[in-house]
């Protein structure tokens, strides 16, 4: 543990940290552009120069290891002069176009020029001009502003795993780009916008729409996938302008996927802003009492068995519990939250969550991916897998789609055959698993959402048990649970926690659709459920509650306009089983309302009075059903148990990922212009090179 003195303050830091980190630990700010905690050290911007005793020149603190007995000064005349000089050099070729630059107001260069720079320019020669690069539909470039910090290059190479960016030429002719023209084919590309310390890389969809000081910032949680990335929603008036990542070391670190970041323009299109009732085959605008009246009319005299409810992929736990209570009051056992028909078992929590946790991936030494394409199903999880891969000593085996995951892996096979062989120890990779200290497996929805899904789940459980993936009691030291289910829907774990699965003799999604087609199911309630084949709803009376005019609303007989995730205070449980609260950034459009309130009002109209009148009371109800809801942001280890069917046979068909088009997996993405452009650029154009052939 080296001890050093920073600005007269003695401080002890862990071995291996840099001088810059030591300064930060001492509470001293050191300006920097190229240094970033999560990227390799480049040491090329020179902004972090500090004075070190016994050194004739100032040193770049980001690249200098802290050593015992160092005496660092960050406020000496030498350090100040060095920084001022570096800043002047940087500004030689940086245009002074802040008034027309989107980075203005949140620009590192602007801020640091204010704090450490000269108050005027001595440079009278012509500035350098650089041609802008074409990086695709998400990232706008203005390369004249680039100060060559190379953060974007390092991010693409190290974190995103798409080695497309580089610096070509040298000296004054150096340019950052791809050299050959190509869009950045990464689902994490938007993060280079946040990383860029100047306005060289900015958001294309957000270009010239708002200034940071006009925005109201709301910290919330993402629902575009099951990761539950922490986000900040920036809104102006009643409009979401952009979505940015929020630091959470346990989940998304400081990255978010492009879908999380850029799908928000879909929130302004195709919205359901008032109730509709189908009259004479056409949906006509209605008032809330009219819509509730039509539902009460349709429900009249219907037995519980003929009523069914399907829950969508982005629902908050509050609306799900309100629906569950309503359906229970109607005496119906037919409720299901597994739109994709995944054969998940709600009775044992360890059997449907990501037990290892996302941060826990870094402790694993062997990973087995079964029927999943984490790059497209949960880009953040894939980023963590890649991070673990780069740390070394990590083997990955894949059973399922054979695709580029941005890291090397052993391809074991495509389908159930290989899984069974491996579970029985008759596959070469079994030796790897046996030798591993902390093996983990990730079971994707592609392996579960098929007729033999329960058998796959059973085999996976057996595999986890026989290879020592589950050991030790919860909380015990040395305990390890390497069994993981990777979800694609933000609502799924919450739904399973709340028990939104068919009751005794109840029908699941397949059963509900069969029943509706046959005429046995008379009323179907779709809570933002759009990923089902609505043609199979037959003659049933369909109530759709949701926020977008997607496939469910088109088939509906009554539409109840709900709120999107940016418009309600909701609870979401991510794939790890982590309970998180999202907060409303704006209010729902028109007559739309928060979803649990709609369901509560409807329950009252149908003659049942739920015991909750406020958000607090709904959340108390959540905790009543599943105590985990009382521990937001924490991981509550789940007890191991019996789940899946180990007896029935696994079919040999290959496992396919459910995510074919990363950019359009939900109603918001499908309504988004930006996501449509990405689909065009990355999914349709390079046919056969993306998830479409998975």
């Amino acid at each position, binding site marked *: 543990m080296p001890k050093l003195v920073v600005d007269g303050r003695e401080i002890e830091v862990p071995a291996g940290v840099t001088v810059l980190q030591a300064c930060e630990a001492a509470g001293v700010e050191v300006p920097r552009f190229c240094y970033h905690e999560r990227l390799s050290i480049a040491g090329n911007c020179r902004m972090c120069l500090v004075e070190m005793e016994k050194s004739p020149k100032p040193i770049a603190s980001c690249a200098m290891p802290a050593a015992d007995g160092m005496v660092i000064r960050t406020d000496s005349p030498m350090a100040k002069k060095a920084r001022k000089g570096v800043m002047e050099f940087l500004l030689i070729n940086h245009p002074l176009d802040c008034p027309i630059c989107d980075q203005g107001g949140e620009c590192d260069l602007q801020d640091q020029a204010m704090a450490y720079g000269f108050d005027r320019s001595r440079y009278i020669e012509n500035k350098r001009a650089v041609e802008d690069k074409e990086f695709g539909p998400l990232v706008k470039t203005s390369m004249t502003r680039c100060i060559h910090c190379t953060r974007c290059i390092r991010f693409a190479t190290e974190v995103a795993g798409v080695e497309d960016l580089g610096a*070509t030429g040298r000296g004054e002719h150096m340019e950052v780009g791809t*050299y050959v023209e190509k869009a950045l084919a990464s689902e994490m590309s938007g993060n280079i916008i946040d990383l860029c310390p100047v306005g060289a890389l900015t958001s294309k969809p957000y270009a010239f729409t708002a200034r940071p000081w006009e925005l109201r910032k709301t910290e919330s949680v993402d629902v575009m996938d099951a990761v539950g990335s922490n986000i900040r929603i920036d809104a102006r008036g009643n409009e979401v302008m952009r979505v940015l990542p929020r630091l959470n070391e346990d989940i998304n670190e400081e990255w978010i996927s492009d879908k999380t970041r850029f799908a928000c323009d879909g929130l302004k299109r195709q919205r359901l802003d008032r109730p509709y009732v189908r009259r004479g085959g056409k949906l006509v605008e209605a008032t809330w009492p009219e819509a509730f009246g039509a539902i009460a009319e349709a429900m009249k005299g219907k037995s519980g068995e003929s009523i069914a409810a399907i829950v969508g992929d982005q629902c908050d736990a509050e609306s799900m519990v309100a629906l569950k209570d309503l359906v229970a009051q109607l005496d119906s056992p037919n409720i299901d939250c597994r739109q994709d028909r995944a054969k998940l078992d709600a009775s044992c929590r360890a059997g449907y969550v990501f037990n290892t946790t996302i941060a826990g991936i870094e402790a694993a030494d062997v990973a087995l991916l079964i029927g999943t394409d984490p790059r497209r199903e949960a880009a953040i999880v894939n980023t963590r897998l890649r991070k673990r891969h780069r740390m070394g000593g990590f083997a990955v085996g894949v059973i399922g789609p054979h695709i580029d995951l941005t890291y090397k892996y052993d391809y074991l096979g495509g389908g159930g055959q290989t899984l069974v062989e491996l579970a029985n120890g008759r596959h070469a990779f079994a030796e790897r698993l046996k030798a591993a200290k902390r093996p983990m497996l990730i079971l994707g929805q592609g392996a579960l959402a098929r007729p033999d899904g329960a058998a796959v789940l059973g085999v996976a459980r057996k595999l986890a048990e026989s290879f020592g993936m589950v050991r030790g009691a919860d909380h015990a030291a040395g305990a390890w649970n390497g069994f993981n289910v990777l979800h694609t829907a933000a609502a799924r774990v919450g739904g399973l926690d709340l028990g939104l699965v068919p009751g005794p003799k109840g029908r699941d999604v397949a059963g509900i659709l069969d029943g509706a087609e046959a005429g046995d199911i008379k009323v179907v309630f779709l809570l933002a459920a759009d990923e089902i084949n609505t043609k199979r709803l037959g003659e049933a009376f369909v109530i759709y509650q949701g926020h977008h005019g997607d496939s469910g609303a088109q088939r509906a007989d009554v539409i109840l306009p709900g709120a999107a995730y940016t418009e309600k205070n909701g609870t979401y449980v991510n794939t790890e089983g982590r309970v998180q609260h999202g907060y409303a950034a704006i209010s729902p459009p028109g007559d739309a309302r928060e979803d649990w309130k709609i369901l509560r009002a409807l329950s009252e109209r149908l003659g049942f009075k739920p015991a909750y009148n406020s958000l607090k009371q709904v959340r108390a109800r959540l905790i009543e059903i599943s105590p985990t809801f009382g521990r937001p942001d924490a991981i509550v280890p789940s007890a191991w148990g019996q789940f899946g069917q180990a007896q029935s046979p696994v079919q040999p068909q290959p496992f396919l990922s459910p995510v074919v088009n990363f950019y359009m997996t939900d109603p918001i993405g499908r309504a988004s212009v930006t996501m449509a452009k990405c689909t065009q650029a990355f999914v349709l154009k390079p046919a056969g090179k993306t998830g479409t052939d998975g």
Partner: protein
Amino acid sequence: MTSKPAKAVQPKSFAFTAENLARAQKIIARYPQGRQASAVLPLLDLAQRQAGGWLPLAAMDHVAGILDMASIRVYEVATFYSMFNLDPVGRYLVQVCTTTPCWLCGSEAVAKACEDTLGIRFGETTPDGVFTLKEVECLGACVNAPMVQINDDYYEDLDADRARAVLQALKAGTKPKPGSQTGRQTSAPAGARTTLTAAKGAGGS
């Protein structure tokens, strides 16, 4: 332009000949296992020689493939070094040094002689594709300034006439003797010795 590939006709494909591939493998073998990327410079040089004096995109991609590197990493190297030509060049690449020592010794006249003899300006190629003329920075032969480099050879101690003579000879299909064009031995004193005159062998020659 080093920020994007040449607009010139880029060949669709490139592959080392069997002979060059063998040489490439030999070069790669000089480096430790897993450090094969270190061979990028000699391999690019090999590719440039095979491709006729310049590096098409396909050649860089081919080298990247052999060394298991991302293509962009090879582009970075190739665009950094001025010895790699990213545009097609003529059979003879004439590089005229105009840095201070050569300039003081009359490189302006040499440059003008080259331009007049070949009928092209700096950065251009003759219509028959035989000569390309380039202005370059110091090539490290200041003792024999002014000088030009033609392909792999240095022609030194030039003036307008001697430069013209070298180029005329190349035009005629002969190869003038590289090195000093005044007949002095490498970088030995141009005239007689000025010091150690009493020593053995004094008095020039």
